């Protein structure tokens, strides 16, 4: 038992999950989330974030691998895990035909809570989230931001020790988003461990102490946002080319850039070229000169300190596409 108390909040080893014959959603995923952390699982749609959450929260079962929450196996002892976790699903899982209070009371009942104790808890949460006013109205009349807060409040009724937030701010306006971020920080300050999935780089950067980048069912990088960024030396440089005679251009382009000494690993994506340099300001003239010598004209150049964008690029070899719309080919 002493060991169990020292175990991480979440520990997944070698998770594999396939759907049908062809879709391999998780491909040997390892994840460790420390107690007391706000940990972000960052990746585009389809990378395996939601599948990971489904398995760790006992909703789905892995084909292979194990996962433990606070030392308890999610398959062998699902019931015990369920009592310690709170789950806030991706698309508002509250009942729109019931009032906010009814939703929360029912949630409490599912954990065996009831009576005065439950009523006090629900009132306190409604007040803490600023939802006392609409509490007795049918949820479908609420605003999107209010609903999302209700989702979170509902996941907290039974005082979980680990909270899962699956895409908590997708579809929220900027104001509602920053309000929710403030709530998440407050809950974390009270000692709650939080795993959030997001496809917003900014969200992971702003909110999380630890970030795990997930790509094609695997974790490809993990660390504090600043660590991940500073592990990338220098600056990022982004070139927008003036014309797009793609394939023929690629060879010449790579050749031209290879001659610029400081430049490392250019990634060409249509007419956008991304690369890292030790010193952006100094590299730009050399890069432009090299391209000019090859007769490649450049529409714009951007130099920036490394962002999680660049971390993502570095570890996956692809530019970060913040989804929602399908990538058409």
């Amino acid at each position, binding site marked *: 038992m002493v060991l169990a108390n020292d175990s991480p909040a979440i520990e997944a080893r070698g998770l594999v999950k396939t*759907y049908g014959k062809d879709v391999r959603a998780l491909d040997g995923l390892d994840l460790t989330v420390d107690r007391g952390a706000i940990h972000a699982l960052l990746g585009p749609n389809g990378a395996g974030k939601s599948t990971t959450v*489904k398995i760790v*929260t*006992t*909703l*789905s*079962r892995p084909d292979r691998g194990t996962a433990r929450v606070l030392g308890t196996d999610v398959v062998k002892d699902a*019931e015990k895990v*369920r*009592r310690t*976790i709170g*789950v806030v*699903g*991706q*698309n*508002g*899982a*509250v*009942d*729109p*035909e*019931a009032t906010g209070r*009814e939703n929360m009371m*029912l*949630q409490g*009942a*599912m*954990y*065996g809570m*009831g009576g005065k104790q439950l009523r006090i808890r629900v009132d306190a949460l409604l007040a803490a989230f600023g939802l006392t006013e609409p509490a007795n109205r*049918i949820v479908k009349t609420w605003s999107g931001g209010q609903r999302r807060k209700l989702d979170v409040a*509902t996941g907290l009724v*039974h005082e979980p020790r680990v909270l899962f937030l699956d895409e908590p701010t997708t579809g929220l306006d900027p104001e509602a988003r920053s309000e929710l971020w403030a709530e998440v920080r407050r809950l974390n300050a009270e000692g709650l461990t939080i795993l959030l999935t997001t496809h917003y780089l900014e969200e992971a950067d702003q909110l999380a102490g630890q970030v795990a980048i997930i790509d094609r069912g695997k974790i490809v990088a993990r660390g504090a946002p600043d660590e991940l960024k500073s592990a990338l030396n220098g600056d990022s440089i982004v070139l927008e080319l003036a014309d797009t005679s793609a394939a023929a251009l690629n060879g010449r382009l790579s050749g031209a850039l290879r001659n610029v000494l400081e430049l490392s690993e250019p990634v060409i994506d249509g007419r956008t070229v991304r690369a890292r340099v030790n010193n952006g300001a100094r590299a730009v003239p050399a890069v432009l000169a090299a391209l000019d010598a090859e007769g490649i004209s450049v529409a714009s150049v951007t130099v920036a300190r490394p962002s999680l964008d660049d971390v993502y690029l570095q570890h996956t070899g692809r530019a970060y596409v913040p989804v929602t719309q399908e990538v058409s080919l």
Partner: protein
Amino acid sequence: MTALVETTRMTGRHLRFFSRQPYFIGIFLVQPVIWLLLFGALFQNVINIPGFAFEGSYLDYLVPGVLVMTALFSCGWAGMSIIEDLDRSIMARFLVTPIHRSAIIAGLNLYEVIALAIQALIIGALALMLGAKFPGGVSGFAVLTLCAMLVGASVSSVSDAMALTLRQRESVIGINTLLTLPLTFLSAAFMPLNLAPSWIATIAAYNPVNWAVEAGRQALTEGPDWSFVLPRIAGLAVLAIVTTAWATFTFRSYQRSI
């Protein structure tokens, strides 16, 4: 014990929804009213066919059949509620709490049969207004309603299981259409089985809908033969329990597939 409490909480959730739009029940009353009013009137003279062994009017004969048929097509929609909850991720939220899976199914089924009992009262009142006689009285009608409710619980479970397995509205509608009329026609709902072809009578002996119709009709007579009624009720109760367990079991395959 906790499973029972959870079941009533789940039923309460559905009842609250119902109390906010009680007119929904009207949709399910259109059919039985048509059967009673039109079918009952059109076929009122079949009672005079030699061998139609029944004391009373054809309307009296028809009431148990219509009520049990109402159980089929009213409770057959239970799966829609499951699909709504799946689509809104409400089911996913329930499934990551410690609630017993059986309480999710049983809570919904209990609501369905409570709604059915309300419909039975309305159908009974309407039949009385049309001149039907129930020699078995209130207790007889209560037994008939119980039979219909047990059929309703089984049908709800089948509908729930289909919803969890196939997860499409069409499949729930399909199973409903597939079950309702054949099961009703393969029973004594509209015609005594001694007047039906022998193969129908043979199938009817194994048809739970027929058990409910015949047991309910027997209970509505003056001085019912309880040795005829009780075994059929027991059979219906066993079926309701088995189908509920089966629907609960389909959560496993659902959770494996997501």
